[in-house]
């Protein structure tokens, strides 16, 4: 009994030490945050850095409040966010569907192999001007940019994982007379879920790149447009605001995917 209570005391001490560490980690994270923004503010006020180029947190905040009040921020933000989410979903979905088609027909996959390699090594944003000419300078071509940047890599990664499924699971289904579709549904797809989810995480970042570059090229609204416009009229407060908003949104999207991951693959 005595021994038991001793173990319990040690365990409690251990839990306390963990909590304490977590507390310190949070503390230093906050310190870095404060130092960065106050340092930025002070350096800008004292003209150690050019306030015209680097702006300052207070100016960014002021602009933020103005743009929240007149609603223009949410307008631009909504535009860019919907493009990014659409591009992200399309990229992942199309990539997975393409991977399924390649898995379905090994012959086709052999034929397409070199083309996939070429498309994958190609810098996709370089296709921007062509997309714009083909689809028009619009929402569609920006979404296409957000999609095209992630679709090929998704195809390759997911297809590789489809092929690496232990053939014995397929054999089990075949002994029950499973069709190719049943094999895909019961073995191939579920065992590739972890890989598909991890490509989702990569695709979040890629879609932002595609959409922002797309907006640089054509848009007359959106966060990417805010950056380009701010740059052209030398309003760097606008550029900084846009960057900060993008950072926050991208982080939220990433967290959402992580949450999804925890929900979906708790059993693997």
């Amino acid at each position, binding site marked *: 009994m005595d021994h038991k209570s001793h173990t319990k005391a040690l365990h409690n001490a251990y839990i306390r030490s963990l909590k304490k560490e977590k507390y310190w980690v949070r503390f230093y994270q906050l310190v870095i945050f404060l130092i960065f923004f106050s340092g930025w503010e002070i350096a800008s006020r004292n003209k150690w850095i050019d306030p015209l180029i680097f702006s300052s947190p207070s100016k960014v905040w002021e602009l933020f409040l103005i743009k929240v009040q007149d609603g223009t921020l949410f307008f631009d933000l909504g535009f860019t966010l919907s493009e990014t989410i659409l591009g992200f979903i399309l990229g992942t979905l199309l990539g997975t569907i393409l991977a399924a088609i390649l898995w379905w027909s090994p012959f086709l996959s052999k034929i397409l192999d070199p083309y996939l390699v070429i498309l994958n090594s190609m810098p996709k944003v370089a296709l921007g001007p062509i997309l714009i000419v083909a689809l028009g300078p619009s929402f569609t071509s920006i979404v296409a940019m957000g999609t095209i940047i992630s679709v090929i890599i998704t195809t390759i990664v997911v297809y590789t994982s489809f092929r690496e499924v232990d053939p014995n699971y397929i054999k089990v289904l075949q002994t029950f007379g499973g069709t190719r579709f049943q094999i895909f549904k*019961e073995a191939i797809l579920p065992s590739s879920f972890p890989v598909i989810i991890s490509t989702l995480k990569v695709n979040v970042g890629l879609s932002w790149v595609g959409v922002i570059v797309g907006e640089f090229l054509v848009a007359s609204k959106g966060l990417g447009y805010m950056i380009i416009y701010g740059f052209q009229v030398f309003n760097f407060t606008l550029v900084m605001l846009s960057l900060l908003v993008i950072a926050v949104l991208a982080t939220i999207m990433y967290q959402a995917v992580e949450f999804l991951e925890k929900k979906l693959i708790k059993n693997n």
Partner: protein
Amino acid sequence: MTFLKVQDIHHTYFTKSNAVTALSNISLQVNEGEFISFLGPSGCGKTTLLSIIAGLFQPTEGRVELEGKQVATLKSEIGYMLQQDYLFPWKTIEENILLGLKINHHLDEEKKAYAKDLLMQMGLSDVESLYPKQLSGGMRQRVALVRTLATEPKLLMLDEPFSALDYQTKLHLENLVSDTLKSFGKTAILVTHDIGEAIAMSDRIYLFAPSPGKIHKVFEIPEELRECSPFDTRNHPMNAEIFQTIWKEMESLGSQESHKSTP
């Protein structure tokens, strides 16, 4: 009455670099309700033969008939339990044991109840909602067996089902499987490396020789031993003698394998 007829099977695996003849000139017949063992060193084509009997692929030459019909057309009548359990880790035990019925579209309440009942008979209650990784190796093996039996196959094939288990679990499962199969009057083929296990479980033993795989010798197990449970057979006075005979025969094959079991 011949239930399963394997006739002049030859099988060669072709790869880019070579052609491996895994089986040559295999013929055998199994009657309904018999329990047969394939015994032989690693690489002598036992798994290949089971796959062919299961209709998973066509042999290069020869035919396999179950009740006079070519097997490729009647997959659901043959249950095949692979060398490991291969339970699907993302499915619960319940989903795993119902997989076969789901695949061949026979899943109804009656069959479901039957599968759950089998699970109980195997000494596994209250595991339906668990995931495979939460079970021990022996339990998983039993679940895999239930999954195979749930589709009520006429012919059951077991590929080294007990080789990864500890000795005690293995003895226990041997009895369980033997009882279960006897009570359903199922025909079965067991693949094993273990002479003792082959004697304990079967009515007849086919000893395979390697490169290329062929049937080296056939041993009939005396009536007296057949009637004993696997555990009692292992302790039967006649067991040692048969074990010696088969052991010598295997030695003469110059097998590269060491055999784990003692009589």
